[in-house]
């Protein structure tokens, strides 16, 4: 089996794709990449469809050794990637040779980075997805976060795949990860379980992300949101982005690995098109919630997802250098070289 070897595991590194859809009624959480913007773009840069499996890295990146030639990209938080000690750009398709080592100097902004490889990681499909469901111990690589010694299988590279090298996302589309963000949400559905004026309080106050933030949820701290009576109700289905409020009045944003059902009152739901921003927040970052009507929310999200389709089209239309490809050996090392005819 050919692949990429984990030399150091990083903080929380898992194989993810766009999640396991269609099994919530069986109690199976969707899981999948928290930042689908970065993960999808990472895939398109190397010529993949958006649902190919990627490696999600969190804050402290892993150290990876390439045991085979790979075209890869890193999108999302800037963890300062270096290949054999040399800095490489994010949001760009890069080629690695056999024996190359990828490591990270440390996080600058953001929290999560996605590594896509040409053809996608080839871990087994479980119920139609390669996402890791850590709680159930299934999917991804052996159903768990990566650790030292793991070998992640990839597809062997052909000349066509190598042509994606150099594909880059326009800098204007590369997000700036701020430590204070505005997040659009749809209020409800349990507003009537809270005291009057709770929505005004919720939107007027900044909420800080606490250290208790992970793939299941982001616990926030700020002005408490007061219930009329009990904080819980009959357990009911959750949505990714549901903001639940337990008895202490502190909101929790449910994310991809949260249980499919829960019994705390929900004050609002983060828009699907805003989730990728939540994914990049870390402890100490601050959120200002902005309420939208259902019509505004729908328009916002439709616009966002349509813009993703445009980005996809452009990235997959990457014009490779015209001409012929050769493998050239210099001082014992092999290089892929494109030769373009000079006209005129």
């Amino acid at each position, binding site marked *: 089996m050919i692949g990429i070897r984990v030399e150091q595991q990083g903080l929380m590194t898992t194989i993810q794709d766009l999640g396991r859809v269609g099994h919530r009624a069986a109690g199976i959480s969707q899981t999948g990449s928290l930042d689908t913007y970065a993960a999808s773009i990472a895939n398109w840069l190397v010529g993949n469809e958006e649902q190919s499996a990627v490696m999600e890295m969190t804050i402290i990146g892993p150290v990876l050794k390439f045991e085979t030639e790979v075209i890869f990209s890193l999108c999302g938080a800037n963890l300062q990637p270096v290949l054999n000690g040399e800095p490489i750009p994010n949001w760009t398709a890069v080629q690695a040779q056999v024996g190359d080592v990828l490591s990270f100097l440390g996080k600058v902004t953001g929290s999560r980075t996605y590594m896509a490889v040409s053809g996608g990681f080839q871990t087994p499909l479980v119920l139609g997805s390669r996402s890791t469901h850590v709680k159930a111990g299934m999917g991804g690589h052996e159903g768990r976060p990566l650790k030292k010694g793991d070998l992640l299988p990839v597809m062997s590279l052909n000349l066509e795949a190598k042509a994606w090298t150099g594909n880059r996302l326009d800098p204007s589309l590369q997000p700036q990860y701020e430590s204070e963000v505005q997040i659009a949400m749809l209020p409800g559905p349990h507003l009537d379980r809270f005291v009057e004026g709770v929505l005004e309080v919720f939107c007027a106050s900044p909420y800080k992300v606490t250290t208790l933030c992970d793939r299941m949820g982001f616990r926030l701290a700020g002005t408490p949101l007061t219930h009329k009576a009990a904080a819980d109700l009959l357990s009911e289905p959750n949505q990714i982005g549901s903001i639940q409020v337990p008895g202490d009045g502190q909101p929790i944003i449910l994310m991809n690995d949260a249980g499919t059902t829960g019994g705390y009152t929900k004050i609002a739901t983060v828009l699907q098109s805003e989730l990728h921003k939540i994914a990049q927040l870390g402890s100490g970052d601050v959120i200002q919630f902005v309420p939208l009507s*259902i019509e505004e929310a729908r328009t916002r999200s439709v616009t966002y997802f349509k813009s993703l389709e445009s980005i996809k089209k452009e990235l997959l239309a990457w014009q490779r250098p015209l001409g012929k490809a050769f493998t050239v050996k210099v001082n014992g090392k092999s290089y892929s070289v494109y030769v373009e005819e000079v006209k005129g």
Partner: protein
Amino acid sequence: MHTDLKLEWNGEACLSLVVTDKIEKEALVVIQALSQYIDLQEWSFLTERVPSYSGLTLYFDILQLREDLVMTALSQFSLKGEAAKAITDFKEIEIPVCYGLQYGPDLEKVATHTGLSVEEVISKHTEGVYLVYMIGFMPGFAYMGGMDETLSTPRLEQPRLKIEAGAVGIAGQQTGIYPLESPGGWNIIGQTPLRLFAPEREKPSLLEAGMTVRFKSVTEAVFLDLKQKAGDC
């Protein structure tokens, strides 16, 4: 039960159709009918539908969503009409359980707390007919109703770090089965050899909303035999 369907949006892509705010069998029947009605619509933009205690939650593909079609279909579904013609044939499943021994470390505790004998706890638990209202919390975990109130026992003060998959327990007025190894605070009275959750199976969750569950007491020998067979499939 409400007189009309209440609609609650959980964000722009998730709609809960609320039928009731309490645990009631009448609502379960109507929710099953609503599920079937939604399935008949064959909406390509519907990605998930999850029955719950209180209703049915739908998840949509935002780009494909046709809200007009949804509203039209829902306006034609009558809660009263469905409640009136409610049929109560639920798919029944029997769950074999080896009670006590090392499989039910809290069986004695439940007996002491309830003032019943161990035999009485087992017979009351196996006499019950349990309705599955919802699967959630973890893969294959069934929220069931219908446990005999006299069996109620509060959760452990200090949850165990590890409870085996297949453990059958009581927590407050609820009874349930752990589908996966997990930490937990339920009183464990026995264990089933059946796999409540198997990702490789066509239906990964053994139980689903709308089923009726009965427990059957089996000996350790039968338990071990069934466990081996369950591991093979």
